[in-house]
């Protein structure tokens, strides 16, 4: 059991899903509230990262962050090392790849809030941002939980991007998913199964906690 990889993975997934909460909410807010007629193009663009095979996306990210790209060189001149093959690089790659899993459910939930409540809030002197914070967000918890858990779980299992951008360096960028992959490749099935099982159980517990805390009320009404 490679606990180092576990700990790294959980850190990565938590960080990515929390950052996606932070940057996904404003993007989704814009998508849900803008009346720009070409908005649907932006919506389509948000979903694009996931249509590429993850290793290929990872390849492009690698090239973009690597020591031969301007971005990579700028970062290197700043920090002394490239973004690729670091934990920060993993975070960037995973963020890009999991973005749609956060943004799309958020936007769907925001758009479903009863507009009459937004009107009421404005008439009570609350600015759009306050209204968003005090009415839209609390009434969108199901969508927020969905986006959060999808991006969290997806980052746990993320493999292609992480492998490419991270380079599978123990303790720095070797996540559980790569670890399991390595074992399977190596025909160490027993230890692969064991690691996969532990990953599944821990993920299950984490997800169950999230869903349990944010218990859906169950549609009220005569659903018998």
């Amino acid at each position, binding site marked *: 059991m490679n606990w180092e990889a576990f700990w790294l993975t959980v850190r990565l997934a938590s960080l990515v899903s929390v950052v996606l909460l932070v940057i996904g909410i404003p993007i989704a807010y814009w998508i849900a509230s803008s009346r720009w007629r070409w908005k649907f193009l932006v919506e389509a663009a948000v979903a694009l990262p996931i249509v590429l095979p993850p290793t290929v996306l990872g390849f492009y990210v690698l090239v973009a962050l690597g020591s031969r790209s301007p971005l990579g060189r700028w970062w290197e001149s700043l920090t002394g090392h490239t973004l690729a093959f670091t934990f920060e690089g993993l975070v960037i790659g995973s963020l890009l790849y999991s973005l749609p899993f956060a943004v799309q459910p958020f936007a769907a939930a925001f758009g479903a809030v*009863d507009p*009459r*409540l937004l*009107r*009421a*809030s*404005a*008439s*009570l*002197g*609350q*600015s*759009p941002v*306050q*209204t968003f914070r*005090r*009415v839209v967000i*609390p*009434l969108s918890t199901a969508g927020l939980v969905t986006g959060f858990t999808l991006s969290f779980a997806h980052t746990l299992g993320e493999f292609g991007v992480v492998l490419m951008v991270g380079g599978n360096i123990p303790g720095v960028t070797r996540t559980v998913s790569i670890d399991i992959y390595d074992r399977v490749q190596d025909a160490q099935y027993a230890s692969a199964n064991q690691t996969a099982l532990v990953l599944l159980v821990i993920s299950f517990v984490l997800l169950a906690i999230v869903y349990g805390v944010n218990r859906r009320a169950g549609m*009220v009404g005569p659903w018998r």
Partner: protein
Amino acid sequence: MEVRTAPALAVPQTSSELEVRIRKRFPHPEGTFHLHVHFRALAGFTILFGASGAGKTTVLDCIAGLTDPDQGRIALGGEQLYDSDGKRNVPAWKRHIGYVLQDLALFPHLTAEENVAYGLRQFGAAERRARSREMLEAFRIDRLRERRPAQISGGERQRVALARTLVTEPRALLLDEPLAALDRPTRSSIVEDLRRWNQRYRIPILFVTHSVEEVFALGEEVIVLEAGKIVAQGQPRDVIDAPRLETVAQLAGFENIFDATVLAGHEDRGTMTCRIGTASLDLETPMIRAEAGSQVRIGIRAGDIMLATESPRGLSARNILPGAIQKLESRAGMISAFVNCSGAEFEVHLTLAAREALSLSSGKNVWVVIKTHSCHLLRQ
């Protein structure tokens, strides 16, 4: 409600007049709805009255800033809120106008108390709590404070919505049928509360209602809307009790409205004689500019008609018509008598006391007494 002696929010002491001059169209295949109104509302109650679909809610939405007019000007206490020329359009949340929406729109995720405290973000937690508690008590709903809107009754929701708006001490108040779901005692006590509020704050209050009772209980001024236009405006006693339009008479609940033909004018006493419908029944009415033979409509309130069991003498009333009681019906706290006079049926309201005194019953012969000035000539 008890009025706070030291409000933390400055009450605007300037003459706060609301001026509204707007146009707004809703195009529909079956015909465009066209709102076009111009009025001023001074501090105090102004009642918006009118049939369903007349445009009352649209007017309030425009003033609150929740709907953009197509054109016009809205100003409150000298400040331009909307001006299609000057391209000014203050957003709703900066207008400081309280608005109780027709469909309430309580926040489903907040308790009653949190709903009421929602607009008080500028205060500290303690102050917010104190103010909303006080307001909840004033509306007798403090026992609901921990409950969500889904767990309270319709009338309770309406009171929460009212409290939520009033607690913000707005510069003007828009109330869209705020008492519709309330029982009578609760309604009267809230009417009392609102009157006191009005005396304290002296801000313009636009109040939409379908209840003639509320018009008289609250209204210093009433504006009657019909199909997006103002068709009458003034004090309730003029507008509602002496309507010039048939539609207004109907809204005000005029029980007797007849077709009539002008027979002759009497310049000397400023009256004219009209024949009602096909009945051979003549009424003396106030004079209007109408030629003999022209068609008019006459409205008479059931409460303006007297019944007598003996032929009355020495009365100033010029219309004294013999008839027979067709039937008597109980109404809330009164009696409706339907009297047939030469083919025309009059509804007459009597107190229970009067029925006893005259020992009226179905079939009895009576005289119907109508003053000239109780006959209102109506335009269609």
